[in-house]
């Protein structure tokens, strides 16, 4: 679907981005960052370093106090531009509970496509297909509120994918998930090689399995020049030293 020759060109560029909450010090401070097409980047940084804030800035839920956001070569500044951008940049919230507010899974997934002006039939077909791709075909009529934490996370991902984005922003997608669900998520993300994504997580295992580069944030900036190194740590498993998959 994508023009393959464009790989390695910037899809999203942030220049000199700054932001602070009212009467608070700067959280994002003159931040520069470029996300290339079809690249997958991880961010691991302490609580409160501004990761969620950054994601909200990118999709225009918060307005920067200074700086430029460029998406596919166009500068994004007015709310109209952000509306366009939000069709192509999908944000998975830190808390899946905050993202789901319809009684059934199918209604929730179809909400985005309906808002994009699709007809009911188109929206339904698309939603069912997205659910199917995520292995959630049986979930269409389930009550979202009663799903488990991991299931909610996957449904929230479905609501984002139903908007057919080209870039995904994933905010701590694994918090509170067990190993099985985590590995399901890893497999899913590894199938999204056509998309670009940016993942925030405190778990290095997860980041190394899903991204090519891991950066950190400090003093309101993303540190791209000091990439994180991989090393070994203790880790416990029932199947011990034998070869194994996490379950």
């Amino acid at each position, binding site marked *: 679907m994508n023009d393959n020759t464009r790989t390695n060109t910037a899809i999203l560029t942030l220049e000199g981005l700054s932001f602070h909450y009212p009467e608070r010090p700067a959280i994002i401070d003159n931040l520069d960052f470029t996300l290339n097409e079809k690249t997958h980047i991880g961010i691991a940084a302490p609580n409160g370093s501004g990761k969620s804030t950054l994601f909200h800035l990118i999709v225009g839920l918060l307005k920067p106090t200074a700086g430029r956001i460029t998406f596919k070569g166009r500068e994004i500044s007015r709310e109209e531009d952000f509306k366009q951008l939000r069709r192509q940049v999908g944000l998975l919230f830190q808390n899946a509970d905050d993202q789901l507010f319809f009684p059934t899974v199918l209604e929730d997934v179809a909400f985005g496509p309906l808002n994009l002006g699709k007809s009911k039939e188109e929206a339904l077909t698309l939603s069912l297909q997205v659910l199917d791709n995520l292995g959630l075909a049986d979930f269409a009529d389930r*009550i979202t509120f009663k799903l488990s934490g991991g299931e909610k996370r996957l449904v929230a991902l479905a609501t984002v994918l139903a908007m057919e984005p080209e870039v995904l922003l994933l905010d701590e997608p694994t918090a509170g998930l067990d190993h099985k669900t985590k590995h399901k998520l890893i497999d899913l993300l590894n199938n999204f090689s056509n998309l670009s994504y940016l993942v925030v997580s405190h778990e290095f295992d997860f980041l190394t399995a899903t991204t090519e580069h891991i950066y950190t944030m400090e003093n309101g900036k993303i540190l791209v020049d000091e990439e994180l190194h991989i090393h070994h740590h203790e880790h416990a498993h029932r199947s011990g030293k034998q070869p194994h998959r996490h379950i």
Partner: protein
Amino acid sequence: MHIAEGVLSGPVLAAGFAVTAVGIGIGLKKLDSEQIPETGILAAAFFVASLVHVPVGPANVHLILNGIVGLMLGWAAFPAIAVALLLQAVFFQFGGLTTLGVNTAIMALPAVTCYYLFAPFIKKKTKIASVAAFACGFMAVFLGTILLGGALYFSDENFFEVASVAVSAHIPIMIIEGFITLFCIAFIKKVRPEMLG
């Protein structure tokens, strides 16, 4: 839906306090200490929900939701609404101390009335439930505005026109509250039916 301080006459203020005191008395009596967190957190949810502005044509109105409060809390609507209004006064200066009684009565009396009128039909599986839910939202606001108009009129007959304007301005809100209540109750029935009494 609240009346600012300094508008109502002594007898009307006193009547408001009397009704509210009785209502809170009954409400607290029916509340076990176990149910206080639930009532308090729902009161917080109503406080927050009433900050939501929904568009009507070119204007925005904020929601009142006393019909839903009534359905979920019954008599406990009195203490819950009183507490929410006190906090609204503290944070936003809506209403105030002397009008707390009247303002609580204006919202809570219709809430309790609608609870008795409509709660028995809400849990039915037929169309009647939807009609009852709409009527509950509509009537709770309607009765509230009548009380509001009455409080003004009985304070000073010169307020007749002001009261009429206030009542008619609420007509679109009644319709919107009807729909919001209808859909909201449908949601709760699907997701957590035990919340409706």
